């Protein structure tokens, strides 16, 4: 670990400034303690095992500032501009955040939002004790230095605690990041609590408003109650200058079912941590990751799934496509704790390298302390099947289009595990835009609405 020397004054100044905004005593305390923890832990470096392949040097060397709600509201954005990012799915409710702060003026009107769906800042004002209780419940997993830094700037985010309904809406959290000088960082937290038997669908969507640098350091806590069903999508589509570090923590209670679909398409330096804890009997977790990099993108997927109770089932699929000089990392560990008998865990990481400069590091890991389990993992790294590409060429497709189609087909294995058509459609468009002959490709594969 490197001592936190690079930007200490800056972060301290930001913290002092932001502490004034809204703060019950416990929250001020909380922030101070997290800042202290960040100092103790220090920046992770490539000498630390979990950061072996990813350097945070670009983040350490840049004076990212954290802005308050005032500056975030100054950014001029028209509701029309949001149309491009909307999913256009029936029942979609959109919550818009700019530099990590909720913008009610751009979001769905409060009357349309289900009961219990609000911004974290609002919840901290209205029901601080409730938020405190959720934070206590959520912060049971080991958090790294970045999570501590996030905690020090706990200001805003989404607070989703909807009651149980028969027609749960699709909650679209749109995080817009501005390009400013000095560059900005947003530390937001999404707290998602699903009640017993409840259902929820959340799409978190990260996009850049400009082409400049910015850093998103977000945490999502998803606490799934007994017998609940939660779907969570992460669409990372920021610009190639952006840094995105992230923790998605899912806690599964008895018989709950959680799907996590992180799709990393954009960003320059992206680190996505997934921490799943199957803490109830018979719970089921699906992690369906997709990462597509080109240029000099660095996409790091880190995952730790803990089976703490018997009869848990977890399936993890990660599909990676790397072209040009992109680098991909996958490190996934399944931990089966003593007593978590009859666990069924399966992990698959498949990677496609499109160029000789692209690089992939993969570490699928198993740590098993119970005997009555079925655990497997598999990882492959390879290139497109030349014979299949040749076949398509004999059918009249130009080489590049044939390759693009094959690449798309590879990535589509991940898309097919997503069951919201609007998200699939959206990702399909984003994906084909990243491949050569994007328009022709899109026409060939467009899904009927």
């Amino acid at each position: 670990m490197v001592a936190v020397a690079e930007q200490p004054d800056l972060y301290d100044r930001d913290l002092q400034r932001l502490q004034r905004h809204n703060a019950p005593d416990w929250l001020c305390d909380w922030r101070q303690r997290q800042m202290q923890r960040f100092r103790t832990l220090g920046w992770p470096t490539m000498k630390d095992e979990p950061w072996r392949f990813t350097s945070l040097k670009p983040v350490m060397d840049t004076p990212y500032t954290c802005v308050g709600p005032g500056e975030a509201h100054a950014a001029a954005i028209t509701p029309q501009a949001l149309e491009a990012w909307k999913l256009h799915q029936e029942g979609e409710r959109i919550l818009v955040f700019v530099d990590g702060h909720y913008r009610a003026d751009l979001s769905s009107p409060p009357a349309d939002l289900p009961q219990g769906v609000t911004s974290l800042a609002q919840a901290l004002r209205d029901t601080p004790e409730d938020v405190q209780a959720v934070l206590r419940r959520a912060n049971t997993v080991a958090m790294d230095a970045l999570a501590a830094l996030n905690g020090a700037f706990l200001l805003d985010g989404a607070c989703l605690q909807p009651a149980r309904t028969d027609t749960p809406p699709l909650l679209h959290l749109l995080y817009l990041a501005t390009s400013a000088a000095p560059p900005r960082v947003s530390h937001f937290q999404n707290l998602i609590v699903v009640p017993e038997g409840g259902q929820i669908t959340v799409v978190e969507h990260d996009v850049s408003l400009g082409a400049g640098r910015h850093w998103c350091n977000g945490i999502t806590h998803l606490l799934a109650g007994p017998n609940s069903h939660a779907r969570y999508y992460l669409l990372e589509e920021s610009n190639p200058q952006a840094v995105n570090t992230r923790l998605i923590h899912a806690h599964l209670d008895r018989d709950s079912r959680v799907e996590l679909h992180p799709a990393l398409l954009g960003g320059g330096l992206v680190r996505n941590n997934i921490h799943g804890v199957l803490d109830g009997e018979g719970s089921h977790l699906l992690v369906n990751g997709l990462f597509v990099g080109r240029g000099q993108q660095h996409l790091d997927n880190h995952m730790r799934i803990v089976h703490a109770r018997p009869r848990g089932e977890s399936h993890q699929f990660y599909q990676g496509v790397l072209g040009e000089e992109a680098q991909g990392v996958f490190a996934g560990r399944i931990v089966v704790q003593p007593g978590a008998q009859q666990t069924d865990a399966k992990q698959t990481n498949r990677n496609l390298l499109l160029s000789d400069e692209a690089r992939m590091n993969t570490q699928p890991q198993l740590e098993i302390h119970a005997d009555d389990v079925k655990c497997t993992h598999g990882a492959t790294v390879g290139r497109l099947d030349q014979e299949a590409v040749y076949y398509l060429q004999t059918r009249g497709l130009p080489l590049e289009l044939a390759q693009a189609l094959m690449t798309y087909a590879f990535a589509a294995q991940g898309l097919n595990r997503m069951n919201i058509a609007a998200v699939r459609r959206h990702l399909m468009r984003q994906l084909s835009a990243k491949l050569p002959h994007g328009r022709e490709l899109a026409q060939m594969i467009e899904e009927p609405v």
Partner: protein
Amino acid sequence: MTTTDTIQDLVPDKYKYGFVTAIDADTAPPGLNEATIHLISDRKQEPDWLRQWRLKALKHWLTMKPPHWAFLRYPEIDYQAISYYSAPKPARKDGPQSLDEIDPQIRQTYEKLGIPLEEQKALAGVAVDAVFDSVSVATTFKKKLAELGIIFCPISEAVRDHPDLVRQYLGSVVPYTDNFYATLNSAVFSDGSFAYIPKGVRCPMELSTYFRINAQRTGQFERTLIVADEGAYVSYLEGCTAPMRDENQLHAAVVELVALKDATIKYSTIQNWYPGDAQGKGGIYNFVTKRGACRGARAHISWTQVETGSAITWKYPSCILQGDDSVGEFYSVAMTNHHQQADTGTKMIHIGQRTRSTIVSKGISGGHGQNSYRGLVKILPGARHSRNYTQCDSLLLGDQCGAHTFPYIEVRNSSSRAEHEASTSKIAEDQLFYCHQRGLDEENAVALIVNGFCREVFKELPMEFAVEANKLLAISLEGSVG
């Protein structure tokens, strides 16, 4: 009785090779400093370059810290409490000339171990360079091998008789700065084997060394160096047993293999050192650095290991695939029982074009055993059209044990392919049931299934070893019956 209970009962058992031979040992006082190095060098009458090399290693070692990344738990080792040199006292100044001159007690020990040192045993076609603690006591078949130009002798002798060869290759695969234990070994290595197979020679017999740790509190630090010149072939067997001990013993060996153009080296190990008692007391700490370099085109290095002993095993036989079209293989069975811990695996570094590697690792855990596979497959940008296939399977024989898999796969070009598969499970009830149905009892059914589980690896062993491996596993599994 439930199946679980029965399996618990089957999982062993006593260390069959636990005994101590009381002979006089010429032992250095505990502690490690420059004086220790001079003592070792003086005793062994080593040339100055080797003495300097040891001193350099010691100097570097003093700046290093023991590694903690492995999935192992053990108390800190006090390296100053260990004696770094031990040699059986020579009966005569000029050393033994024939079997008759060997200390009868040592010979008895070998007989108990079943080492084919004597003539009738030689029919098995095995030339044994037996290392008893630190000094090689006898070497057989030397003459026969010498006719073919093959050099097979203790490394201390090779330093004297073939200094140029040793100097050229020693530390060229595992440099003295490599890692904590390899550096320690470079500083204090006691003895070991040296083999050189000249150009185009196919070694007519399996070369074999039996290592034994005997004197109390004497870490044994073998250094093995095998060089196969262009087009040569050699198969090398290493087998290990150690006497019953109460105190943890440290073992930090280094094995270096060099395969030049078109050469093949097959290195097989059976490791059955004292694993500690059922409560996890005692046992050998086995921290070994093994590495082979395929220096020329079409070179081939194959590691096969059966690890059933030691309280702690830390061992990663690796291949550096430098030459184009070179091949690296790793076949391993690791069994941990009681409180044994093993963190073992391999590294395959693909540098040359069209290089291929295969990894097959089978882990069996019983009792409170912790078994980890840790492997690295690294395909560098220049290693175009390279292939790797990795398969790691773990079998759990109890609900207190652990099986872990930590592979690292790093691919830097698009024309290569790496595949990794791993699974962890226990013996399925239906498999046991099927065996019962065919009239096998619980014990035999488990033994049969475990045997089948390891088959892929055992078939890679030379025949003599395959028999021993089966026997070892049977002892481990059948307990009272075995």
